[in-house]
């Protein structure tokens, strides 16, 4: 997907674990892992809001756009 997630990099810069972030934003570790590994298909504004608030960053620090072919709408992981 042309949208890249850089949650792992932001977490490393903040020296914060995924578990701690999950506790702070109220999202399960499993869902954060899906987001971190780039498997997520969408992200809610409320989740993005909580992530930016807890990580002290902008949405652009977490997700960026890299030109490339779009994903198959039905997903390739099934």
């Amino acid at each position, binding site marked *: 997907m042309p949208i890249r997630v850089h949650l792992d990099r932001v977490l490393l810069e903040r020296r914060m674990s995924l578990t701690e972030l999950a506790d702070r934003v109220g*999202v399960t570790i499993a*869902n*954060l892992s*899906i*987001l971190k590994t780039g*498997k*997520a*298909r*969408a*992200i*809610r504004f409320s*989740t993005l809001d909580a992530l930016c608030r807890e990580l002290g960053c902008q949405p652009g620090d977490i997700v960026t756009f890299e030109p490339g072919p779009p994903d198959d709408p*039905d*997903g390739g992981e*099934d």
Partner: protein
Amino acid sequence: MRALGPGSVSSLLKIILDVVYVALWIVAGAVLIGFIASGVLVANPDLLKGAITINGEVTELSQRGPSVMGAIAAGGLYVGGVLIIVGRLRRIFATLIAGDPFQPDNVRRLRVIGVMLALLELSRYVVAGLFAWLAPGVNKADAGVSLTAWFAVLVVFVLAEVFREGARLRREAELTI
């Protein structure tokens, strides 16, 4: 009354389907026994001598035997088709009771049901045609095209697509963080 989940209309329908499923297996067993018995009697018509006679003539059985076996086999195939449909319906209703109707497996199950409904309807035409060919005077079967049956087939296929879209949306929701 709720439509989905435990204690809902779905669970009531699932119980009915379970009963019908068991009854169909019993009928299928009876048909199989009847088929085997008729095969044995056709092969050895002498077995009936001294026991029972059909229209007073044992030899008539050997003449009608193959057609009787064919009718039983056709009945068995019909019961098998209905068994497959009810079996798939049971599994679909199990997912409804679990409150998770949009499982990808339900798409395949609905397609199987649609195909089986179409095959059963086609088999009705074949059987009616055979009866008309073998016994023109005796044929009472309705060989007319049933619009209701084909409408049901199309509805089931459309429902399968609806469930496929539902499964896709469920997948999307699962991967929305």
